[in-house]
C-alpha cells in the first residue's frame, strides 16, 4: 500500500466564491451603464473605503501595527495629487501613481521614528505624526493654507470629455483601487512573506528563531500599506475635487470609520473588511437622516459586536462553518491506493 500525498491550497467554497466574485466584478465594471449618477458616486466611495479598510487590516490585523494615523497618508496622497497637477502640470493619473510612490517614501523616515514605540505608544505616535502632516500642509499657502483649495477646472476637464465620462472614469479608478488592494493583500498573505507575517502574529520568539526578521517584515508592510493608502487618498480627493487640511487629515473619516469597518467585519481576515464595508454603508445610508443619533448607533453596534463576536462578523462565520473564501493556508491531502 502506498500513500500519495498532495498539498492543496484551495477549497470548493473558495472556487465557488471566486466564480461568484468574478461575476460581481463584471457587473460592477458595467455599473456606469446601468447605475445613476448618485449611485455611482456612492459605490465609488464604498470601494475606496474597502481599499482603506483592507490596508488597515493588513497593517493592524496581520502585522500587529495598530496605527490610528493612516489619515496621514490619505491626506498626503490627496495633497500630492493637487500639488503635482497644479504646480508640475502632470496628468492626474500620473500624479496619482506618483502620490503612491511619494507616500511610500515619506513613510520610511516616519517608520524609523515610530517603530521605536510599542503598543498603545505606537498608536499615539502614529496619530501625532498625522497631526504633524496636517499642520505642515496647513502652512503651504500655495495650496490654500488652512482653508484648502479646489482642483482647477482645466485639470478636471483634461481627464475625460464631459461630466459623465469623468464620473465613470473616477468610478472605475475607485473600483480598480479596491480590486488591486484586495488582490495584493491576498497574494501577499499567500506568499512566503505572508507566512512570516502570520507566524509573527502568533509567536514572535519562535518566529525570530526560525529566521524571520521581525522588524524588517513589519517595516515592509508599513511602507507598502502607506504607499497604497496615499494612492487611495489621491483617488478620494479626485472624487471630492476639493481639499483642506481638516478634511484630508481627518482622524474620524479615514481612521475611526475604517477601524469600525475592520473590527465589525472581522480583523485579521481578508473577508472581514469586505463584510464590514457593506455593514458600515448599510447603516450609514439608512441612518444618515438621523444626524448624531447615527454615530451613537454606530458606537452601539461596535460595542455589541465586540462583546458578542469579538472576531467580528466574518470571524464568527469562519468559526461556525470553517469557511475561508480567500484560502491562505495549506491542506495536506492523502489518497490511499491499496
Amino acid at each position, binding site marked *: 500500500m502506498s500513500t500519495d*500525498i498532495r*498539498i492543496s491550497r484551495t477549497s470548493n467554497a473558495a472556487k465557488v466564491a471566486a466564480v461568484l466574485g468574478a461575476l460581481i466584478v463584471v457587473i460592477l465594471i458595467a455599473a456606469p451603464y446601468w447605475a445613476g449618477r448618485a449611485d455611482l458616486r456612492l459605490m465609488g466611495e464604498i470601494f475606496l473605503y474597502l481599499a482603506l479598510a483592507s490596508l488597515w487590516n493588513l497593517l493592524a490585523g496581520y502585522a500587529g501595527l495598530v496605527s490610528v494615523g493612516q489619515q496621514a497618508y490619505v491626506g498626503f496622497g490627496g495633497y500630492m495629487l493637487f500639488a503635482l497637477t497644479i504646480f508640475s502640470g502632470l496628468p492626474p493619473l500620473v500624479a496619482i501613481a506618483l502620490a503612491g510612490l511619494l507616500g511610500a517614501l515619506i513613510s520610511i523616515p516616519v517608520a524609523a521614528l515610530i517603530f521605536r514605540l510599542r503598543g498603545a505608544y505606537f498608536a499615539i505616535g502614529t496619530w501625532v505624526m498625522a497631526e504633524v502632516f496636517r499642520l505642515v500642509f496647513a502652512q503651504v499657502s500655495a495650496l490654500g493654507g488652512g482653508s484648502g483649495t479646489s482642483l482647477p477646472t482645466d485639470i478636471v476637464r483634461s481627464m475625460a470629455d464631459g461630466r459623465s465620462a469623468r464620473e465613470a472614469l473616477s468610478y472605475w479608478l475607485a473600483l480598480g483601487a479596491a480590486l488591486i488592494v484586495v488582490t495584493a493583500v491576498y497574494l501577499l498573505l499567500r506568499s*512566503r512573506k505572508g*507566512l*512570516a507575517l*502570520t*507566524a509573527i*502574529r*502568533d*509567536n514572535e*520568539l*519562535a*518566529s*525570530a*528563531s*526560525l*529566521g*524571520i*526578521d*521581525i522588524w524588517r517584515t513589519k517595516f515592509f508592510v508599513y511602507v507598502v500599506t502607506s504607499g497604497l493608502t496615499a494612492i487611495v487618498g489621491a483617488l478620494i480627493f479626485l472624487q471630492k475635487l476639493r481639499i483642506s487640511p481638516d478634511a484630508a487629515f481627518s482622524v474620524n473619516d479615514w481612521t475611526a470609520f475604517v477601524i469600525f469597518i475592520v473590527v465589525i467585519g472581522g480583523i485579521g481576515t481578508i473577508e472581514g473588511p469586505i463584510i464590514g464595508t457593506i455593514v458600515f454603508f448599510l447603516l450609514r445610508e439608512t441612518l444618515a437622516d438621523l444626524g448624531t443619533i447615527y454615530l451613537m448607533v454606530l458606537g452601539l453596534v461596535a460595542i455589541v459586536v465586540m462583546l458578542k463576536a469579538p472576531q467580528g462578523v466574518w470571524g464568527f462565520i469562519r468559526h461556525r462553518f470553517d469557511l475561508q473564501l480567500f484560502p491562505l*493556508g*495549506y*491542506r*495536506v491531502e492523502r489518497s490511499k491506493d491499496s
Partner: protein
Amino acid sequence: MTQILQLDAVSKAFGAVTVADDLSYGLEEGEALGVLGPNGAGKTSMFNLITGTLKPDAGRITFAGDDITALGAARRSRSGIARSFQVPQPFTHMTVFENAMVAATQSAGLAGREAERLCIEVLDQTELLDKANDRAGGLTLLNRKRLELTRALCAKPRLLLLDEIAGGLTEAECTALIATIKSIHASGVSIIWIEHVVHALMAVVERLIVIDFGRKIAEGEPKAIMDSPEVQEIYLGIEADA
C-alpha cells in the same frame, strides 16, 4: 574535522544572577554534545546566547568560522542554527504543516514544492503526518514537543540545539525519540542536547559538559563525567542507568 561552534569566555548576568560565567567550549562539525546541570544552572540561557535570543555581556561566539556575536536570532537561524524550545512555542493558530512550512521557507530558504516535500518528509519522520492539518494550539504536550523537533529539522540546520526534548515521555516514546535523534546525527548534523533523562542522553552523545551557576564545571567522555564525584554530588538522586 572542522570546528562548527566555539564559545570564548561568554558571560551574561541579569543583575546578581549569573547565567553564563566565562563559558568556553567548542564543538566539532558532526559531533553530538550533551549538557547536564541542575535547574537554573544556565543551560537554556546558554542556548539563548547561541541562538541570539540573548546578547552576551562579554565574550565571543563563532559559528562555522564566522563571528556571530553581534548577529540577531533571525540571521543565526538562516545561517544554520536551529533549536527546540524547552517550553514549546508553536504558532498556535496555524496548522502543524504550516508551522513546518515557516521553518522550511524562512529559515532553510526553500520555496514551493521543495519546501512542501521537506515538510512532509520531516513530519513523517517525527510521526506528526497524521496531525498535519490540525491547529498546533490543540496538540498534546508530546505532539508539541514533536512539533518543536519538526520545525527545527525543517530549518535544515547544521547545528541543532535540543532543550529537554525527552522530558515527560513514556519509555517507548523515548526509545523512538532516541532513534530519531540518532538518525539526524548520522546524517551529519551537529547536536547540542540539554537533557535530564540521562540514559537518553548517554545513548547519543559523544561528549558531556556539566554546567552550574553558569560555569562549566566538568567536560569529557560521558561515562567518566557521570562517574566523577563532582557530578555525583550535583546529581545525587538521579540515576545514570545507561
